[in-house]
């Protein structure tokens, strides 16, 4: 990582933090649980990092770590989105009773 790359990355990091602070400022309590679960799925993006280290790995130890990271990351992503969707499915609008 060159100093320029590093500064760019830090700039992105800081701006993304500011976006994160703004993006969920006024949420009804009802949605706190699904929102937590939805944010939880998003950090499953670390699976992309697992793919990158799997590609760079060149010894059994590294392969082992990369494999566990892949399994963990994939469980986080797939499970996270599916369980969040299950929660949100229940918020669909219903016909009022006659």
């Amino acid at each position, binding site marked *: 990582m060159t100093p320029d790359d590093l500064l760019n990355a830090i700039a992105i*990091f800081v701006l993304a933090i500011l976006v994160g602070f703004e993006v969920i400022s006024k949420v009804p309590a009802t949605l706190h649980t*699904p929102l937590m679960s939805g944010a939880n799925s998003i950090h499953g993006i670390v699976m992309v990092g697992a793919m990158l280290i799997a590609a760079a790995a060149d010894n059994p130890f590294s392969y082992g770590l990369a494999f566990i990271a892949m399994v963990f990351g994939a469980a986080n992503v797939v499970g996270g989105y599916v369980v969040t969707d299950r929660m949100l499915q229940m918020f669909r609008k219903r016909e009022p009773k006659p």
Partner: protein
Amino acid sequence: MSQDMIDALVFLAWLVGAAAFVLGLHQMNSPATARRGNQLSAAGMTLAVIATFLWLLSRPGGLSVTAIAIIVGGFVIGGGLGLWMARRVAMTAMPQLVSLFNAVGGGAAALVAIDDYVHIVGTPELVVATAIFVVLGAVIGSVTFSGSLIASGKLQGLVPGQPITFPGSRLVTALTALAAAAGLVVLVLPAGGLLALTPEIQLAVLGLIVVAALIFGITLVLPIGGADMPVVISLLNSFTGTAAAMAGFVVGNPVLIIAGALVGASGAILTKLMADAMNRSILNIMVGGFGTGDSGGPAGPGGAGGDVRAIGIDDAAIQLAYAQKVIIVPGYGLAVAQAQHACRELADLLEARGVEVSYAIHPVAGRMPGHMNVLLAEANVPYPQLKEMDEVNPEFDRTDVALVVGANDVTNPAARSNPQSPIYGMPILDVDHARSIIVIKRSMRPGYAGIDNELYMDSKTGMLFADAREGLRQLVAAVKLV
């Protein structure tokens, strides 16, 4: 297509993915668009993952067969497990599953940082900044891994929900934190060329740091009571986001940095909102010790030791059937007994008789904020009948019967009246303002906070000792006969 162009396209795909996360999270602020928001976020994730895979394949040299096997095999196994658990989990057990997914996410972030370090240690690629990010990623990821597992275990009942402390536990927490900080310094020095250490020693130091961080995560969460777990899980969720961002710095990937920082920041705000809903500070929660039951001062007038009045099914049914306005106060007991369907049946029956029925939802009813809404929605309770605390509290004064099903601490008037009570100051539902109160409860066992509930000693309160589902079923049968 030239490699430069492919690189640029992949970068753009990552950017689109990151934008989808931001927009998706934003849409999750409102019930009407929440599901679409989550799907948008999932689409962004799919795009980012596929683009990464194709990019890795397209690069000169491509992917080794082993690497492909690891990526595809790991995805199938991990994704399959995640899918299976997410599909079969009961809605009541959701909070611990979210915590479990959070744990593995943190673990993955730590492993990515560690594996990258294994790769570059001893080479000129290892610069000071990278060493710092590796240690931060490994430490934060490990803390959330072990901490979230403990939190999940507490909610599942595998680890006792009461605060657990042992002599010197604070000391262990402090020492492990110091050890990790010292390890950071030790690893930064050789990266800066200020200290000569062999790669083996540097790896061993990183290993020690990880062990210290894992212990820290355990001793951090053990002393915190089960009632505070939602806030803890949310905080650890925010940590995992930060760990993912650190891993992003290590591997030099912008989408990891953006998504990680996004979750880190939004998770922190969400944690604050949840703590506010319980009228507690995050610091106060993390210090732990809440919910032991031994810090509760003397109960107020008519408090502990007062008489409770048991009420029979038929009496309760008559009170409900001839009421004009009934408010149902559901709590975790209803969820555990899977009584939401029986509850709705009773409400329908009462409504058919012309009784006005609504549900009072405390922000932290259940085990996580919003948990109860999800459970009742599952039972097809019409959304407009669910009323939030601020909206419903003034209505208790003109309510004939408040039917409390498996809720406890959130109805305890001590939160308003007794400054000695550990829950003093917590916003509660003003159930005691109703003309009469029926509490369905299996026994007089205290709730999550471990304290007695003065409401049960109130002369207006009738206790209906039964399992929530069984009690509601009997009530339904009895109301039909009235």
